[in-house]
């Protein structure tokens, strides 16, 4: 029972991490928030569902379609909306992305209907590792998330784009003066984050089994909690924070009750913001 709850928590936490990493990148690099983050998870899930049910694609191909769709959409939204919010007041970012979230949610509701859609597909085969039996789907999620975080960490530390991202996060004006194409960095940051959120939706579909247009909201709130636990802009912190949140939620559901699950994230968020605004692992407050 305890091991089961723990594994379940790690799995859900991994998904939270995939959704939240884009948010922490966006805040860390550009000091932008995105209240539509969870909607990209939802759109990723619906794009995969469309690939599976309407285009009759195999699951792997449907995932690729969904991630490509998410990236394209992110590019479009970045060009039209997100880049114009850089270096603007914080409130404008909140309100604009809230508007986007309403568009996505109600747009999907008009297209797909407000009802639950059964999500087939996935890799249900079972594998036993060290006496614990897991479905292939779950193993894929755990591995993909860990790989994504390692890859991003490498990108930020080693590649040219990653270095530019860190430079922008440290001093925006100096980067503009030094001739770094800040808009391009913003675009890259946003597209990578959204593609991962879309991938999270594609991978989580078979686990939640039924999807609906309002499914993203709870992931937005989780993502904000995750980045607050990890320290805003801290990627490793976000990964650990996501796993912690997933496990805590899983134990709350197991031992307290399902009804309190949604409050856990926000309670954690409020407590963290009030007591450790730089996150559980951070040392300093970002300027």
């Amino acid at each position, binding site marked *: 029972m305890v091991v089961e709850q723990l594994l379940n928590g790690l799995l859900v936490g991994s998904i939270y991490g995939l959704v939240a990493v884009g948010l922490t990148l966006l805040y860390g690099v550009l000091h932008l928030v995105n209240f539509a983050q969870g909607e990209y998870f939802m759109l990723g899930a619906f794009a995969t569902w469309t690939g599976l049910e309407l285009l009759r694609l195999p699951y792997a191909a449907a995932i690729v379609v969904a991630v490509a769709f998410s990236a394209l959409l992110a590019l479009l939204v970045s060009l039209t909306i997100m880049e114009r919010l850089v270096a603007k007041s914080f409130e*404008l970012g909140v309100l604009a992305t809230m508007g986007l979230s309403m568009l996505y949610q109600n747009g999907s509701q008009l297209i797909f209907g407000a009802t639950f859609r059964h999500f087939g597909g996935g890799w249900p085969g079972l594998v036993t590792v060290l006496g614990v039996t897991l479905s292939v789907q779950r193993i894929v999620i755990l591995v993909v998330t860990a790989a994504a975080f390692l890859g991003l960490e490498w990108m930020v530390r080693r590649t040219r784009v990653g270095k530019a991202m860190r430079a922008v996060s440290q001093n925006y004006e100096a980067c503009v003066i030094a001739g770094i194409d800040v808009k391009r960095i913003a675009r890259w940051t946003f597209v990578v984050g959204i593609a991962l959120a879309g991938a999270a939706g594609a991978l989580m579909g078979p686990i939640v089994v039924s999807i609906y247009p309002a499914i993203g909201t709870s992931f937005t709130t989780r993502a904000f909690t995750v980045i607050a636990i990890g320290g805003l802009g801290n990627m490793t912190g976000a990964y650990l924070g996501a796993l912690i949140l997933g496990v805590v939620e899983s134990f709350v559901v197991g031992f307290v009750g399902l009804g*309190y699950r949604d409050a856990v994230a926000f309670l954690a968020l409020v407590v963290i*913001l009030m007591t450790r605004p730089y996150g559980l692992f951070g040392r300093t407050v970002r300027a």
Partner: protein
Amino acid sequence: MGSSVERSEPDRALRWGRRAAPGLLLAGRLLGAAVAAAFVTLPLVGDNYVVATGILAAIYLLPSLGLNIVFGYTGLLSFGQGAFFGIGAYTSAILATRLGWPFWATFPAAGVVCAVLAAVLAVPSLRLSRFSFVMVTLGFVIIAQTIAQNWVGLTEGNMGIIGVPRPALGVSPRRFVLRTVQEYYYFSFGWAALALVAYWWIVASPAGRALRAVRDDEVLAASYGMPVNRYKTIAFACSAVFAGVGGALEAHYLTIASPSGFDLYYTNVFLIIVLAGGRGSFWAVPVATVVFVFFSQLASFTPEQQQLMMGVLLLLLVFRLPGGFGPLFVDLAARLRRRLAPEVTP
């Protein structure tokens, strides 16, 4: 001023303004009187649906005015209105059904409970960043809804509190219970008028000026010795009182208080009303409330279509009209005035 060699443009404009001022003032008063008369006579001419829409406008007016105080005049983006709206509804509903308190006790109690909660919430969250304040107020809505759904002993859980009594005027032998929509319309009209007076009193007071100073330049205000955080806390508490009384007004109208009262839909609606009218603009927010409610109720859109339009409107407001529609009309009036007095053209 004084004996000028030649009349400058501003001087002439001033002269025109002085000459036209009594007329403009009269026109403004006539317009105000016409609008007030329209609202007073609405139940006599409109059908029940229109009257019910009028009640809804009065209910939505209170949280929107509160939001304008905290967001428009003080510059603090708060998602808390939806939470206080729901808490006010529950407070009044519980006191009325369990303890049998009359409305003139439960409505103020709803406001007091919300003010206390707001002050408790504000003290720690305002010390931190703007990000923290936004997230804490948003989190507060979700937590309040979860409590309403799960603390069955107090709130009856997802069922909600049913049978919230309609308010009664007068004392025991001569009680007059407001049963029809027309009667409730006048009741909520009274609360809306009271709220407008309180709103005017807050905004026009020296404290209101201090709020605007905090919004425009927090550091400067602090350097003049203004207790910035205390003013922010007061503004937040005021916004909570308005939202709480608005929630009570809704609960006694629908005769139910349920967890759906905490839906983020309400928070979004109040935000859009304030943004569309023009944050920090006195008359724009009441006007926007009435326009929004009547438009959304009388035009038959599905909830999805309505929220889709709200999303588009939000993006439009952020990128094209950050000041809202209110200033647009002020500009129009100014242009009209220039047309009327061509000699003042710059």
